[in-house]
């Protein structure tokens, strides 16, 4: 699929995320693609290098009351509340269908205690058709007054380290942007053994229904996604890329190839696309082709050479052979 659908020929589109090879750097973001089947009714989802499944929790969850969605300028707010069948049902009824997904599948585990993360990730580990596990450490921690695991390096470490001790699959820690400084969190994830990090999750935000004089979302607050949050994502990927050497999956408001290139040049090895699927189901192919075209235009043999290109402090450990790193003298 790589060079066949209009992507420039002879550019190596593949990227490596924690030992998992993707045919191209685009990934469907968790929560926007469910288990892959729905968008597969309309488009060829193999345009994606990987899809990330909607997060699974240990117990079934009914999720939040409605309204769960509010439209905002250049984005949207959601508060779904992790509605889902729980891990047992997922393993019995949904996982068997994953082998037919025509691209790499990353499962997503969510939990409200360290133990829940471990239980879910352990159950996912070894499922046929699952190549990696993303940990939604942006979940509220019930042992810590509902504060997100990923707002504190210690709780981030606790989740990632506990899961890493128990699973063989590569582990990706998905970080929240709702922090004053992303760098200690990213470092904690790396030091706990994460094979990659992904960021940013949605920004906590709110809208008020002025007619009814109450929050638009039944949950009150929600997660803001879409192009509105892209500059936040670029900045936090930039900061993280100066801090960790593990691959970064950059996401947050990617709508076009240019948006994806911003995140790659800030330091992302791959990019995840979420809300933009809700406008353009073909977005992955467009973004993939634009990334390849940019690599070609710059005379790179591989799209990997784009990672960190704009970021002089980029700490990524593997400088591609096809590119001379040029440090511009900005220390990290």
């Amino acid at each position, binding site marked *: 699929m790589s060079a066949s659908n209009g992507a420039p020929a002879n550019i190596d589109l593949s990227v490596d995320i924690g030992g998992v090879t993707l045919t191209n750097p685009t990934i469907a973001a968790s929560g926007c693609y469910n288990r892959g089947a729905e968008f597969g009714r309309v488009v060829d989802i193999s345009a994606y290098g990987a899809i990330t499944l909607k997060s699974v929790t240990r117990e079934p969850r*009914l999720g939040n009351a409605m309204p769960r969605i509010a439209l905002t300028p250049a984005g949207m707010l959601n508060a779904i509340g992790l*509605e889902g069948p729980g891990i047992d049902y997922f393993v019995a009824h949904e996982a068997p269908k994953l082998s037919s997904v025509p691209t790499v599948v990353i499962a997503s585990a969510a939990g409200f205690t360290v133990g829940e993360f471990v239980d879910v990730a352990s159950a996912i580990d070894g499922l046929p058709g699952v190549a990696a596990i993303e940990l939604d450490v942006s979940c509220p921690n019930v042992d810590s007054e509902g504060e997100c695991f990923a707002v504190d390096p210690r709780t981030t470490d606790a989740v990632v380290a506990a899961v890493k001790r128990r699973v063989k699959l590569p582990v990706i820690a998905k970080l929240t942007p709702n922090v004053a400084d992303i760098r200690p969190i990213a470092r904690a994830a790396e030091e706990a053994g994460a094979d990659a990090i992904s960021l940013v999750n949605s920004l906590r935000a709110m809208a008020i229904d002025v007619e009814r004089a109450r929050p638009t979302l039944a949950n009150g607050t929600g997660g803001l996604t879409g192009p509105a949050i892209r500059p936040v994502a670029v900045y936090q990927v930039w900061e993280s890329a100066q801090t960790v050497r593990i691959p970064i999956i950059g996401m947050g408001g990617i709508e076009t190839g240019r948006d994806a290139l911003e995140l790659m040049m800030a330091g992302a090895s791959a990019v995840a696309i979420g809300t933009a699927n809700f*406008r353009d189901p073909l977005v992955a192919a467009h973004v993939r082709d634009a990334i390849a075209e940019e690599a070609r235009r710059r005379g790179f043999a591989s799209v990997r050479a784009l990672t960190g290109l704009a970021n002089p402090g980029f700490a990524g450990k593997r400088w591609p052979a096809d590119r001379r790193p040029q440090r511009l003298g900005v220390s990290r």
Partner: protein
Amino acid sequence: MASDAPLLETATLISREQVAPGFWCLGFRSPRIARAAGSASYVAVDVPGVFSVRLPLGIWTTRDDEFSLLFREWGDRTRRLARLSVGSGVSCIGPLGNHFSIPVKGSTALIAAGGIGIVPFWLLTRELRAAGVNVRAIVGARTKAHLNGVAQLREAGADVTVCTDDGSEGDKAMVLDLVKRVHAANVIYGCGPLGMLRALCAHASENRIQCEISMEETFGCSMGTCWGCVVPVRRGSQQGSGYPPSPRDSRTYDFARVCVDGTVFPASDVLWLEAYA
């Protein structure tokens, strides 16, 4: 779920009419979607311009390679859509959603439409008439200017009675008041404001009349992936998620996604929680 997979097609805007202040009827040429549409089908429209998720709009009429959308201007996306010039190409996914069920030949169907809730009923009326079903329709709106599409519904073969809240057209009455006067209906179909639908479902239940309603929520993906547009349904409903009960949650219902499990639900499956109030 719709039996056939929805299609991604660029529709060409071929006509644009402001049928009343704030109400628009746009005609599109879109052969594959137009020919596949059925009652309660909708399209998810990519409104050109600054980013927004697709706008779901019910298909009003179809003819050969064309479909029309009748909608009220109520936000940024509908405002922008209404101002596109004829000849514009607009990316649509459709037809999406399930359909109303059709009763046996010779029965009498009663349509209850509130305001812009008339939209799913042109196609339904055609399907009902083609199946030899008698169609009565009560169409109500706040005021005369909000009462759109009645002539087309009559042309499609419905025996239409209209009412308005202010008496500016037809009876000064609520849709439900007139629905209650019709005793011959074997099945009721509803679409409109939640308050009207809730009362309609209660009426159908009290009188043991089969009833289906087409619902609305704020959609995210329009494809069934994001679980943003759910409504609560009775546990065991065919359209609910069917997920195991949540052990830490006292709520004993299921959620169904309006976008792919609906938009049509049997009235007996829909739960009216206080969140709707």
